[in-house]
């Protein structure tokens, strides 16, 4: 059990500046997810916490003690690797027991702990096998088993599900979440998959280009993104970004799309629109906030927009419909039976209460 405090962390690979000043606190027992596109530094950050990479500046403290100069083995950390890193010449039992044997535990204690972990993960029948005889999901379980028997103070997961097929990935994701509930140890999880990040995390740390772009609870990041990048990274299908111009007339504030539509913004969405008339913005609307409008009057803040359904992608539960609004392709997530016919004209209800306005220059959300 331990918290993790990172301050002013920098890491260079030769001339490449991989981590550019990371400040981060992860509370005891928290499930933190580092997420971001390839090359954003998320794996590097995880590896510096593990001690597998040296840091060039800054400080890492685990459970209150600075660990910068501590070897990985002395940090009391367990890690699950992307390729599982099972020891191929040892049985499953010996793989799980490896860390305990290395730390000179008694044989009776080892068999007890390995047995407990195996039954918790449902791999008791596999203990005598070798890693090459296991399927991907089973290897994953063994790797997790190897991590939990140590009862380390901190768990690190480096993209543990990326080598599994989709169905198994969903299954293991739930198991990892359940595992965290059961053992309540601080966990840090690296992924590039925003669904994993959203579903697993207590706190998402979204990295971009060696810096923390935004951190917070999943819903916080989803609903109140600080930048266009965050808005675009989280959510599936991705948020629609429509170029627009601010149109301020007295008390009414609207955005004008390039195709001429005026979308009025709810009052609480704009604190101060003074001087922003004519300013270029990007209107961000999630596909979930475009619904099919009925005949009745729309609730406050929703605006009716007509558009033609260009592309229809049913998923079973929901149907993704792409139309042209404001001269860009906009995806709406509608009900499964809302639209059948390509080329049909639809009445969308655009929920302006949930939209975000992004400054195209700074990428900041206004």
């Amino acid at each position, binding site marked *: 059990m331990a918290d993790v405090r990172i301050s002013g962390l920098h890491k260079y690979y030769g001339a490449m500046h991989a981590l550019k000043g990371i400040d981060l606190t992860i509370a005891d027992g928290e499930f933190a997810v580092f997420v971001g596109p390839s090359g954003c530094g998320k794996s590097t950050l995880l590896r510096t916490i593990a001690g597998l990479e040296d840091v060039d500046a800054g400080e890492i403290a685990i459970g209150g003690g600075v660990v910068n100069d501590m070897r*990985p*083995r002395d940090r009391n950390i367990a890690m699950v690797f992307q390729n599982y890193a099972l*020891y*191929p010449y040892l049985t499953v039992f010996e793989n799980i027991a*490896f860390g305990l044997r290395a730390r000179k535990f008694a044989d009776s204690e080892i068999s007890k702990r390995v047995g407990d972990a195996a039954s918790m993960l449902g791999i008791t029948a596999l203990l005598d096998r070798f890693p090459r005889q296991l399927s991907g999901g089973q290897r994953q379980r063994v790797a997790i088993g190897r991590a939990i028997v*140590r009862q380390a103070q901190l768990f690190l997961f480096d993209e543990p599900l990326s080598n599994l097929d989709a169905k198994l990935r969903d299954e293991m994701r739930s198991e990892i979440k359940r595992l965290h509930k059961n053992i309540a140890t601080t966990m840090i999880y690296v992924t590039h998959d925003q669904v994993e990040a959203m579903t697993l995390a207590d706190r998402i740390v979204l990295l971009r280009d060696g810096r923390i772009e935004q951190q917070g609870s999943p819903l916080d990041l989803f609903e109140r993104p600080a930048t266009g990048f965050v808005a675009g990274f989280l959510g599936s299908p991705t948020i629609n970004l429509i170029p627009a111009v601010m149109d301020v007339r007295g008390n009414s504030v609207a955005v004008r799309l390039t195709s001429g539509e005026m979308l009025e913004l709810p009052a609480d969405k704009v604190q101060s629109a003074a001087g922003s008339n004519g300013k270029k913005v990007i209107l961000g609307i999630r596909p979930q906030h475009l619904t099919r409008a009925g005949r009745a009057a729309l609730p406050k803040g929703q605006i009716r927009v007509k558009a033609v359904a260009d592309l229809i992608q049913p998923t079973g539960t929901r149907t993704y419909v792409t139309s042209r609004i404001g001269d860009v392709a906009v995806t709406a997530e509608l009900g499964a039976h809302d639209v059948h016919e390509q080329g049909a004209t639809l009445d969308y209800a655009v929920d302006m209460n949930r939209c975000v306005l992004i400054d195209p220059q700074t990428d900041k959300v206004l």
Partner: protein
Amino acid sequence: MALPFSRLHDAMSTDTYGHRLSVFSDRNFKYLMVAPGILILLLVGIFPLIYSLVVSFQNITMTDVDTSFQGLLNYKQLFRDARLWQALGHTALITAIALPLELVLGFLLAQLFLERMPGRQIFVALLVLPTVLSPIVAGATWRLMFDVRFGPIGQIVSYFAGEPVTLLWTVNPSLVYPAIIICEVWQWTPFMFLLLLAALSNVDQSQLEAAELDGASYWRVLRQIIMPAIKPVVAIAVLIRGLDLFRIFDIIWALTEGGPGSMTETISLYTYVIGFTQFDTSYTAAVAFLVVALLSVIVTLVLRRMELVK
């Protein structure tokens, strides 16, 4: 590939659906096609072997070209030839000392050069240099190095001893073996080093990292992760070097010529001596066959042990 053959085959068969000419049936046709190649291989590879086997049952010497069958005469002689068994003993001794030395030194060097460091490529290239030399040149070089009058080894030893020391490396019975082994190890450790460096760089890095996080000692990592991973390469390297060492000739020929007396005479040297200085041709063939038989048995046993032939 299959097309021209099958067309030819079709042309040879009497009809497509019924019976075909038995010689060119599907089953035999492929053997027919590889037969010429096999024949040439047999002629080139097996003929000399069979020829020397035949010679070993005759009694050809420099003065006697009698080619009549002499039965096991030469083979009986093998068991009475003390110098032969001594030569085999010398060979075994050199192999038993040099092989583990080369393996261990090669492994340590490979470990050292596994990490990225400035100038790594140049150092590796320099280290590999001895292996590029012809063994006879290596032997001659070390003969100069060991030379009593102007060899640097004697001078260095004298410097550290503080007084002139005369070490007769190629003559003194207690120094000839160390001299041979130094030269041999100097030349062939880089070979082990290269193979082991390649094998070690292929060990899965994340397994080593996982072991580090698990808190495993170096010995545990070596025993349970590194050794099993590089075992196939080590086995091949040991086999290749073992066979080479068993046939060692050039280095010893350059350094001691098997002397003093026949003290450093290995089986290859002995075969050469009886064959080309005593011209005991048939007996030499018998000795050569003994070596072939011995090596075949050893290689078969080792390969089976290594589970490479399954």
